[in-house]
């Protein structure tokens, strides 16, 4: 069985900087660093910056595969014709280090969207193919943040799905287990890692089992029920009006969300030179659906919030057979007015 071939290695926590340095030799390392606002994923320039002492990052790691701006083509405005050239996507191997299980799940959800139907998004795919993901289990000895609800979405605190290598902390040590063959090969190349004993093996297996028992706030949610429920209450303006009465209609929730993917395509010109690029957009913005005719189907705040929630819990299950929310709690933590999507879902289910 494949199971037998999987590799488990380890390193001391104080030596992750050496691991970071080794990865930087092999490609681009993107890992959590502590900033004034909290932890965030950054392209590492100094291996000392890497820190695994965080709960979760403020911004989600989706930007690694879906950057806030992605250049499509560049052009030079000229007479008689403006010429355009595609912008090449410079590709180096990327190591995405320290991703929490809910976020690794988000990549799989976005895969379904960006690689859906007959049209594959080439930028997403190229960036995905070039990345090796180091998943990182949540700490099980401390209680989860109040905002999190990944248990509701069937994600465990030590869920290995979506990782190439999965990391578990054991006191002063970090265990690294290969999940895919890509991860396995990388682990064998990283010679600075130590071999593990059967105790480590047992600890790892037990940690995964304990991770299944570890619960954030949760409720029983069937994908089908949720999708049906939100279809049913779509026209319940009373509910949506109340839900959105505090919403400011800013874009934070969608920008920090690991599964929000809406974007705009803009031509940005300066001194006759320009770039056509895609830029994150948000369904919470007023002009998101403003048509050239002046018609805007979503002029009210509640319509936009409804779109966001229904998109995640109803439209996505219907289209891609998956709820596009991972319960990472980022939108709840970042919301200026403390709107809680978990409460919206739970009160919707009670209607």
């Amino acid at each position, binding site marked *: 069985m494949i199971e037998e071939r999987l590799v488990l290695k380890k390193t001391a926590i104080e030596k992750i900087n050496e691991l970071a340095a080794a990865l930087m030799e092999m490609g681009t390392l993107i890992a959590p660093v502590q900033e004034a606002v909290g932890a965030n994923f950054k392209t590492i320039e100094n291996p000392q910056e890497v820190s695994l002492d965080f709960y979760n990052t403020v911004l989600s790691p989706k930007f690694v595969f879906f950057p806030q701006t992605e250049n499509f083509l560049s052009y030079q405005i000229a007479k008689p014709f403006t010429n355009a050239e595609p912008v090449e996507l410079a590709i180096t191997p990327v190591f995405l280090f320290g991703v929490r299980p809910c976020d690794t799940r988000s990549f799989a959800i976005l895969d379904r969207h960006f690689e859906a139907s007959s049209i594959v998004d080439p930028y997403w795919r190229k960036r995905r193919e070039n990345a090796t993901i180091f998943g990182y289990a949540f700490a099980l000895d401390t209680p989860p943040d*109040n905002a999190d609800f990944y248990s509701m979405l069937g994600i465990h605190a030590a869920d290995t799905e979506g990782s190439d290598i999965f990391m578990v902390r054991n006191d002063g040590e970090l265990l690294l287990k290969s999940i895919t063959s890509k991860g396995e090969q990388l682990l064998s190349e990283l010679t600075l890692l130590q071999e593990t004993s059967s105790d480590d093996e047992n600890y790892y297996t037990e940690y995964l089992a304990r991770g299944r028992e570890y619960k954030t706030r949760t409720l029983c949610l069937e994908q089908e029920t949720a999708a049906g429920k939100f279809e049913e209450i779509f026209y319940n303006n009373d509910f949506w009006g109340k839900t959105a009465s505090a919403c400011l209609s800013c874009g934070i929730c969608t920008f920090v969300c690991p599964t929000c993917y809406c974007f705009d395509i803009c031509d940005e010109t300066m001194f006759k030179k320009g770039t056509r690029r895609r830029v994150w957009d948000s369904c919470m913005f007023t002009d998101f659906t403003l048509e050239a005719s002046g018609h805007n189907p979503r002029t009210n705040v509640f319509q936009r919030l409804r779109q966001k929630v229904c998109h995640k819990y109803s439209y996505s299950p219907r289209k891609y057979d998956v709820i596009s929310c991972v319960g990472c709690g980022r939108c709840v933590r970042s919301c200026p007015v403390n709107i809680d999507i978990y409460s919206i879902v739970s009160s919707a289910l009670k209607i």
Partner: protein
Amino acid sequence: MNGKSCCGDIETAGDKMTGFHEIEERLKSEAFRLLQAGEVSVVLAYGKGTDERHPVPFAALTTADVENIVFNEHCTHNMARYLLRYPSGTKIAVALKGVDSRAVVVLIQEGKINRDNLVILGIPTNSMRNQQNGQIIDARTTCGIANPVLFDILLGEEVHEATVASPYDVLAPYEAMDEDARWNFWKTELDRCIRCYACRKACPMCYCDPCFIDVTKPRWANKSPQLAGNLMYHLTRFQHLAGRCVDCGECSRVCPVAIPLYLFHKKVAKDCEEMFQQTAGMRIEDKPVIVDFRVEDSDKILE
């Protein structure tokens, strides 16, 4: 501190302030009374959130909703933000802390709301806490005014001690910097902006539709979050808020990348006060300084 607190001791002299619990009770009873008597059709206050630390701005429409109203040290949101959501003519009761009331004063000055349609439930307090970091919100990040400047019903005793002498003290190190150092500071700060526009959406004074930054003709700034566009957005926003910003600090509290916008707003407010001898949002008879002039304004202000 005779009210209930969920975050340990308060280091300011807040003990003379009416307790949060008491204010909450009075807020509830006033809301109930106003709604029952039909004096207002909505009460804007705070409601229960995920936990005590995360209350939600809440609109009570019926007496049954009143049960949900809370007030504690984390109810930092500026409820003036929500006033313009209701059709003009709606009778609204709104819970306002000191600085929030200044925002309402500006909105009245600008003819956006009618004083006659408002019942202001004033809340004197100097012990609010930032939800993100738990710190006391005082004159270091806001104007620090504890007592509402405009109210119909006061829900507690007026508070008279200030923790920091002037709301502009915090500017000193930045004003002392030379231009290059200040540019480097703001460049680093504004470079982080991801243009989620939470600052303008949380701002009680930002009500333009469409906002200048969303306009496509002329396109003032690119949509992608690069320094040039961020600079255009923020500097123009500071200009648009000059003489109107009441220094409630909400823009900085909501920023997901922690840009200290309040510093800039404070600086502009301070300059406006010095140049035009008027503080924003103190008296409804005033006119915001930027839409006003005096023939005897000195040309010195241009130097």
